[in-house]
């Protein structure tokens, strides 16, 4: 909690977002709202099988249907090398990517794209899909991560060579990773108690309300324009360029407003298909996923199967942790096993740790990022077992966390030694919070849990143009998912010394601003914010130079203060300060337009920690869990726009509550998804939740001019364990598998009752 905010005029204030009016009046253009003249419509044929060899595809009948303009299959995409290339989130395997956007030798999950059609109307395109004959040889499939690792499991990729582990013969294990610190054998010998448990989490979808949508238009000279909803227009450009073998300069991607992403829109599905269909048909092509397609073929994040073992002394000091995280990747490798391992016990100063992780392919859609990818899964295990230790030792669960808390100078199990971090502060606030001290009623329980995320920097470019009337335009390339235009404008206003409403931020297309990495990893306010501040400082430097020219003094003799150029000291001369608008108004005669610019690969992200408190009431008759009260405390570094910081925390917590209580994929015995809609895939609705009290802690990151760490990822890390711990506190029943939905919890309660009766 900082009162330092007051040293700023704009940073830390709650202004109306620049894109707000468009979004409350229906004017804002989201992915599917965009149309162009002469556009035709594309649809995708998807595999009805979880695992099948594609023996042949006959498109001749579909091609002869009136109104059909183009049909594509995997034959229309050149094959790609499996060599990893840097682009997008981590290293990209384009051999996998081209197979994910369009099945090649095999269909690997229910909903896997096998062909796409563009026709004059969507109805004709759909009719054409039914005329495409695909000859499948159906193979045995595997959905569950533990099943996929067993000997004799159906193998998705016969040629897959796992990294980090040697396995004879074909396997579904794509990767094995290990992290260790100290000596766990010694650590367990020192322990007074040792607990070992297994946990399981379901794969869950990001659940953005806006389905994927794109319009692509390729002209006869090979120039492509793509309008789509994405977290990263530059990634879309890179992926389409590679998949279609086009020069990057021939592709211009304009991001629409984006109706939620949470990581799920950092990849491509429709964009390369629409671009190729447009190329082939010579017409602009619009494609929109249905909700069913979103569930069957996009996202989700991994599900996991974990074991955790923990040792502690009687006084609560944790002496050792061992963990294993088996994460399902979907049909292609890429489960966030590394981050899962690295985040699991990162909030704690534990001397002896060994954690490993597996990245395992199964017949499901390939996972995409989802808020702090991997961390919520391993934290469910780690934060549940720490709760058991606390209970076993009779120590308050926040006190045991505080006793073991990581602080400045703690070496994390994944290697680095933390500099200034705010984890302990989140615990101190939680311990004294009115919520934590309030009484509970019958069938009610309270749980706490903590979480960690690295936060990231990455490439950001920004331009700050000073207009002739003294206003400014801030151009960045980071799609605004949750109010980042407002935070960028606040930082620009603060730096320039002009009013917030004189700064207009825009999100530019790939041809109008330098490269920007995706909106993700909690990086935009930190990294793009830093680029905007540096661009504003560049503009300020130019403004000072202009004042120096007018005054005939050295540029170094001019300082910028509160929106004015002023002489650095009385020695410089007696000059009236020149305002930004006055300098902007005479820019033409002092050297021309004033444009600040900055582009860099931003380093120095500051880690984020959170502690959540959750109260539940369990209905013993139905197993239904009601969330009574929820408090989320998080170190954000600095809240540039506190309302949108709170919003990120509240939204992440709500998603975590959905993951904890209801969200799951239901695959039938044939490997077909039985719940591809919001009625049966149940995300939290307004009546499921209480108010979510977001408590902002500000331990500034000294690598950012205003102290920003980042906020969006970590709020989804603690909720699953917080809810499970609260249920245990209410009922005495420890739920070790998600979701803790009414039928599952009721079964567990019944089992506990039977056991109790028998004793």
């Amino acid at each position, binding site marked *: 909690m900082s009162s330092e905010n007051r040293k700023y005029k704009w940073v830390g204030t709650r202004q109306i977002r620049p894109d707000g009016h468009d979004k409350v009046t229906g004017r804002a253009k989201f992915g599917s709202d965009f149309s162009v003249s002469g556009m035709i419509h594309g649809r995708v044929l998807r595999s009805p099988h979880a695992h099948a060899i594609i023996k042949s595809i006959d498109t001749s009948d579909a091609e002869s249907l009136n109104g059909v303009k183009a049909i594509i299959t995997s034959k229309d995409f050149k094959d790609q090398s499996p060599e990893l290339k840097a682009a997008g989130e981590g290293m990209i395997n384009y051999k996998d990517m081209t197979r994910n956007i369009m099945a090649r030798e095999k269909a690997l999950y229910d909903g896997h794209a096998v062909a796409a059609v563009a026709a004059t109307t969507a109805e004709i395109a759909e009719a054409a899909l039914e005329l495409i004959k695909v000859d499948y040889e159906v193979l045995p499939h595997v959905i569950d991560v533990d099943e996929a690792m067993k000997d004799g499991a159906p193998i998705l990729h016969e040629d897959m060579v796992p990294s980090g582990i040697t396995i004879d013969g074909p396997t579904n294990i794509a990767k094995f990773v290990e992290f260790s610190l100290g000596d766990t054998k010694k650590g367990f010998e020192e322990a007074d108690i040792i607990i070992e448990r297994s946990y399981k989490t379901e794969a869950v979808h990001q659940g953005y309300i806006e389905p994927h949508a794109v319009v692509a238009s390729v002209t006869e000279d090979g120039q492509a324009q793509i309008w789509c909803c994405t977290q990263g227009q530059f990634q879309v450009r890179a992926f389409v360029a590679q998949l279609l073998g086009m020069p990057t300069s021939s592709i211009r991607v304009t991001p629409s407003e984006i109706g939620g992403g949470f990581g799920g829109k950092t990849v491509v599905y429709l964009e390369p298909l629409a671009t190729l269909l447009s190329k082939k048909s010579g017409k602009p092509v619009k494609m929109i996923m249905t909700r069913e397609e979103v569930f069957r073929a996009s996202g989700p994040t991994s599900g996991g199967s974990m074991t955790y073992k923990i040792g502690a002394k009687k006084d609560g000091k944790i002496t050792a942790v061992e963990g294993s995280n088996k994460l399902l990747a979907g049909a292609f490798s890429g489960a966030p096993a590394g981050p899962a391992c690295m985040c699991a016990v990162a909030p704690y100063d534990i001397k002896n740790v060994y954690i490993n992780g597996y990245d395992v392919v199964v017949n499901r859609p390939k996972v995409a990022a989802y808020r702090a990818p991997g961390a919520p899964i391993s934290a469910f295990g780690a934060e549940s077992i720490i709760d058991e230790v606390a209970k076993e030792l009779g120590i308050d669960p926040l006190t045991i966390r505080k006793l073991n808390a990581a602080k400045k100078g703690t070496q994390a199990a994944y290697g680095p030694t933390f500099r200034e971090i705010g984890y302990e502060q989140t615990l101190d606030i939680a311990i004294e919070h009115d919520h934590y001290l309030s009484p509970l009623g019958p069938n009610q329980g309270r749980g706490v849990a903590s979480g960690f995320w690295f936060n990231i920097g990455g490439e950001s470019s920004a331009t700050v143009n000073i207009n002739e009337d003294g206003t400014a335009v801030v151009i960045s390339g980071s799609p605004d998912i949750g109010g980042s235009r407002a935070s960028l404008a606040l930082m620009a206003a603060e730096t320039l010394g002009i009013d917030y409403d004189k700064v207009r931020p825009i999100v530019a297309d790939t041809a109008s601003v330098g490269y920007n990495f995706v909106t*993700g990893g909690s990086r935009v306010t930190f990294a793009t914010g830093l680029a905007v501040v540096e661009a504003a400082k560049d503009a300020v430097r130019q403004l000072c130079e202009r004042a120096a020219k007018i005054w005939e003094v050295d540029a170094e003799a001019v300082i910028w203060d509160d929106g004015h150029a002023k002489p650095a000291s009385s020695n410089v001369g007696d000059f009236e300060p020149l305002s930004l608008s006055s300098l902007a108004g005479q820019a033409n005669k002092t050297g021309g337009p004033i444009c600040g610019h900055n582009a860099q690969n931003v*380093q120095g992200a500051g880690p984020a920690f959170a502690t959540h408190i959750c109260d539940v009431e369990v209905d013993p008759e139905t197993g239904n869990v009601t969330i009574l009260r929820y408090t989320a405390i998080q170190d954000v570094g600095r809240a540039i726009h506190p309302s949108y910081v709170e919003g990120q925390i509240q939204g992440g917590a709500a998603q975590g509550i959905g993951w904890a209580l209801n969200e799951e994929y239901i695959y039938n015995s044939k490997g077909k998804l039985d719940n591809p809609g919001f009625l049966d895939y149940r995300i939290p609705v307004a009546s499921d939740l209480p108010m979510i009290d977001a408590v902002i802690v500000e331990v500034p990151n000294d690598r950012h001019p205003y102290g920003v760490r980042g906020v969006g990822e970590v709020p989804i890390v603690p909720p699953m364990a917080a809810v499970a711990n609260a249920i245990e506190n209410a009922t005495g029943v420890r739920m070790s598998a998600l979701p803790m939905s009414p039928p599952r919890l009721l079964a567990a309660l019944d089992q506990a009752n039977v056991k109790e009766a028998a004793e």
Partner: protein
Amino acid sequence: MVRVLLTDSISKSYTGGVSEFEIFVSNVRQLIRQLDEIYPGLGSEIDNGTLSLSIDGDIYQDAFLEDLQPDSEITFLPKIGGG
């Protein structure tokens, strides 16, 4: 001497299990070159972006141009993305 820490996976793949060592370099470019001589391939993984580095607790998306202090501590990490 700069202290280098490797995760288990990385040390198994590149250094035959050596997970901690010291090296005399004053920036990351020298580190990449020297590592490739001692443990072929390890330096390149930093250079091509497969791995990222933390220097004294800060994780770098790309540390190629960073200077190192004589007492710097470096950790090799998998690349971090996010939602």
